[in-house]
């Protein structure tokens, strides 16, 4: 400790001792203040403060040295107190140390006899202050560590992913709540527990064992492992200490079941699309081959009939591709609606008009009814045309000759409702449930020759839902079908 910073108090009723001490100490660079008796010394100590040491005469009026030492110690136990005494006996020394004094200096003394215990005392004080500081720091660190530990425990336990930690002896030493859920065997086992005893999955055990035995580092193994009904992506890595020794292994288990399902659904969809595209292409190719090879003779009427059919399939294919593009755009969020106040009745009438001719060909009675005033809907015109074209097209397509297709537009102030009803072939309950699925087409004697993509209704459903509307289907075999689209009005 820097001597300059040390302030020493000298308390003695003898002026000569006081000043003698002051001179010796000041010459050594200490800062010195004096008091003439115990009470004045205590007062000085309290008011000035910051004393590193106190030299205290034993016998003084008002307050003796022993008491003063005691009082000073009460205030600051790190102050080095030295008792100056003319009665240097063992008893006095013992008594003084009992009261907290560091030592005593018998009178009379030489400058060195004074300075030596002062220096030693101050050194000890510095040491004890440092020790105290270190101890406080350590305690603080311990607290921090304990806090950190509980914090990391909380975090680990709150993780959605399962965490397993094993030691070098292949014993499970940590598992979080999620891991306990995934691997019920390790939920209640007291830790550490043998891995073989608590983890059923041989795959997981092998992965952890391999991670422990990792030769090349860092090694992070990733593996898909099925546990129960779910699939997990398990990332395992060795736990390595600063010396590079492997202490254990940690595995993080992420539930990728939903992702796997999505993957399967996606590839099923792709395969379905491929089939749906292949079929019309195969038909077109077949017709062209028959025509070009001349295997069906040279009848121009026959050729035309086949070419017409090839054209129908080509048109279906093209519609399907554009519908697929629309559906994909909706999936990826690239399909944007340009909504503006729209009179649904007008749109419906427009679509019905465009089907008049087709209906006449099949002698189908196509009627449209619109009640009262017109409510506007905030909608995308193209999307609405697409929606009602699909519904009316289906109705005309799947209604046998001389049937009826009725379109009604109705509104109740909250919803504009469009009903497209036919008395065609209808659907079985199973067909009804799947009517809005991609690529679903009811297969029967009647539908076989009707071209369709199987995408129209799923497109319609999405378009309606994008307008915060709903679509309902009432149907029964032989009793026709009714599609009801409800769209919230702009008001």
């Amino acid at each position, binding site marked *: 400790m820097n001597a300059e910073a040390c302030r020493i108090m000298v308390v003695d009723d003898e002026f000569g001792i006081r000043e003698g001490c002051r001179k010796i100490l000041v010459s050594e660079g200490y800062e010195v203040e004096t008091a003439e008796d115990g009470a004045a010394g205590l007062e000085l100590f309290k008011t000035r403060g910051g004393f590193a040491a106190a030299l205290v005469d034993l016998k003084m009026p008002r307050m003796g040295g022993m008491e003063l030492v005691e009082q000073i110690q009460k205030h600051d136990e790190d102050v080095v107190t030295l008792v100056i005494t003319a009665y240097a006996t063992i008893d006095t020394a013992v008594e003084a140390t009992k009261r907290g004094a560091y030592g005593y200096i018998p009178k009379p003394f030489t400058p060195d006899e004074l300075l030596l215990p002062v220096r030693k005392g101050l050194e000890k004080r510095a040491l004890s202050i440092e020790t105290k500081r270190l101890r406080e720091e350590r305690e603080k660190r311990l607290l921090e560590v304990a806090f950190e530990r509980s914090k990391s425990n909380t975090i680990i336990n709150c993780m959605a992913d399962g965490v397993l930690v094993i030691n070098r002896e292949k014993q499970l030493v940590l598992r979080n709540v999620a891991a306990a859920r995934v691997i019920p065997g390790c939920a209640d086992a007291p830790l550490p527990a043998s891995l073989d005893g608590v983890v059923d999955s041989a795959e997981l055990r092998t992965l952890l064992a391999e991670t422990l035995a990792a030769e090349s580092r860092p090694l992070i193994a990733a593996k898909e492992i099925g546990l129960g009904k779910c699939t997990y992506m398990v990332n395992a890595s060795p736990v390595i200490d600063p010396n590079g020794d492997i202490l254990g292994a940690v595995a993080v288990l992420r539930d990728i079941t939903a992702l796997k399902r999505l993957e399967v659904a996606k590839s099923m969809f792709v395969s379905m699309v491929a089939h749906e595209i292949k079929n019309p292409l*195969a*038909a077109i190719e*077949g*017709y062209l*081959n*028959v025509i070009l090879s001349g295997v*069906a003779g040279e009848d121009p009427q026959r050729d035309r009939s*086949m070419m017409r*059919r090839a054209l129908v399939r080509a048109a279906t294919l093209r519609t399907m591709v554009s519908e697929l593009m629309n559906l994909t755009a909706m999936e990826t969020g690239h399909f944007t609606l340009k909504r503006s106040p729209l009179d649904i009745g007008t749109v419906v009438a427009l679509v019905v008009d465009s089907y008049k001719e087709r209906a006449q060909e099949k002698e189908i009675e196509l009627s449209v009814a619109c009640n009262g005033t017109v409510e506007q809907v905030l909608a995308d015109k193209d999307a609405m045309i697409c929606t009602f074209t699909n519904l009316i097209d289906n109705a005309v397509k799947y209604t046998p000759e001389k049937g009826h297709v009725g379109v009604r537009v109705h509104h109740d102030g909250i919803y504009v409702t469009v009903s497209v009803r036919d008395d065609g072939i209808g659907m079985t309950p199973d067909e009804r449930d799947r009517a809005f699925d991609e690529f679903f087409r009811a297969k029967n004697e009647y539908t*076989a020759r009707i071209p369709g993509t199987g995408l129209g209704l799923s497109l319609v459903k999405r378009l309606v839902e994008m307008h915060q509307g709903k679509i309902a289907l009432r149907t029964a075999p032989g009793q026709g079908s009714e599609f009801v689209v409800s769209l919230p009005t702009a008001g």
Partner: protein
Amino acid sequence: MADEASLILLVDDDFDFLEMNRHVLESKGYRVLCASDPDEALAKMGSDTPAVVITDLMMKTLDSGFLFSRRLKEDRRFKDIPVIIVTAVGSRCGFDFRPRTQEELQAMCADAYFAKPVTPEKLLEKVEELLMRRGREGAT
């Protein structure tokens, strides 16, 4: 050219398959009856007996064609009609029904088996071959 106006029954739920083959067979002078499933076929046949039956396998159910060919072979009136099974079941569902031996072909109550796609020429060839064979057997 086969007997005048032999009736060929085509059963398939693929409308274009029916159309294509109908055109080719009709151009060769056959009468052709098309149906999208076995029940419709039997109903349309009425009292008319086809000379050859060409049937798909997977129609309403996976084995519609098998059930149909067995039904024909078990019926006194139809048991001598050659049956050609034409199916995409292999490429579509991954089932391998292709018969390796004559016994296997007979076990599925069929006289010929084709995996789709099959050209109308090939089918026509087989139809004529079966009709010729039948003609010879009829003569002996």
